[in-house]
């Protein structure tokens, strides 16, 4: 399986006070820990267990993720932007890896 790759889509600019839609997706197998391999051994759980979004350091959205969430978890949410700045996105893997992405937005 390829290395998890985060992807984020949001507008490059917005009007002050506008509510924008943010779409996020990370490629990840989300192995639930419930399956067994050919020899009957449990395949260890390996999922993204936490996702957060911050804007200029302030929390915007966060959630814990459980094994029932399917592969390549996709989150779409809205945020109101009053000033320009940077969105920071963080995905935390069971193995301790942290995947991040940043996107700037201009406010006119």
């Amino acid at each position, binding site marked *: 399986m390829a290395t998890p790759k985060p992807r984020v889509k949001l507008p490059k600019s917005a009007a002050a006070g506008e509510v924008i839609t943010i779409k996020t997706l990370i*490629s990840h197998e989300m192995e639930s820990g419930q399956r067994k391999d050919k020899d009957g051994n449990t395949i260890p759980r390996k999922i993204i267990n936490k996702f957060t979004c911050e804007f200029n350091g302030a929390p915007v959205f966060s959630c814990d993720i459980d094994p029932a969430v399917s592969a390549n978890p*996709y989150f779409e949410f809205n945020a109101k932007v009053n000033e320009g700045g940077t969105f920071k996105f963080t995905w935390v893997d069971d193995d301790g890896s942290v995947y991040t992405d940043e996107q700037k937005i201009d406010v006119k």
Partner: protein
Amino acid sequence: MRNKFAAVAFGVAMASAALSPATADPVDEKLVIDDVEIVSRAKAPEGLPFDEVLSGWLYREAETRALEEDSFENPGMLAVERGEEVWNTVDGSQGKSCASCHNDAAETMKGIAANYPKWDVDAKRPINIELQIDKCRIENMGAEAYKFNAEEQVALTTYIKHQSLGAPVSLDLTQGELQSWWDRGKDVYYTRTGQLNLACASCHEANAGKMIRADHLSQGQANGFPTYRLKDGLVSLHQRFRGCVRDTRAETPKAFSDDLMALELYVTWRGTGLAVETPAVRH
């Protein structure tokens, strides 16, 4: 007495509802992927009983259609990204990747897949993208052919076909003996097989637009393959052929066998003029 009449009237209403044909026509919408409109309806090539050939996209639910219209939301795009990795990965004894010879696929593979299957002069049979990849791997990379439906094979095929997104399907049947393979494919298409005694045409020609239980039958076009199916992820064309044949309870032909290559040629031709949609999103 009144109650009895009401019951009779209700019974009649139920019966007429059950008897009316379960039609669910394709929608009258334009397919726009990332703000670029691509052809999802085209004049049918001569010899088809349809006036128009229609992309399977027109037969899907609004939510499914929306997934294909935004390449960010299209789950098949993950395979395109994976295919790009495979494209750039060195494999085989010659130390080459696809990119070593073909450089940037965005330029060298643009529009290519819209003209496949082609005639393979060496093998004297039609060749599709999967077999072309295998040929390249064996002859130029010193690598082995992929096992059918290997993850890399599907991803790389998706990546290569995606470079033709929007290009209209157009086959040159004058190459080699393609015309006789087209005839054979037509035979396969119209031959009823299996315990259910169904031909491809029974569903995708005679009953396109109708419901078969919970499934909305499309014309069965090949222009969006490999396609992302909501129920089982990325599906290659020959996997879909095999699944369809299995569902008629017939013996399932091998992928890339003569029968299925002839069928791929013929079914692809039936979609002449439709834009390549790889990776399409279907249910």
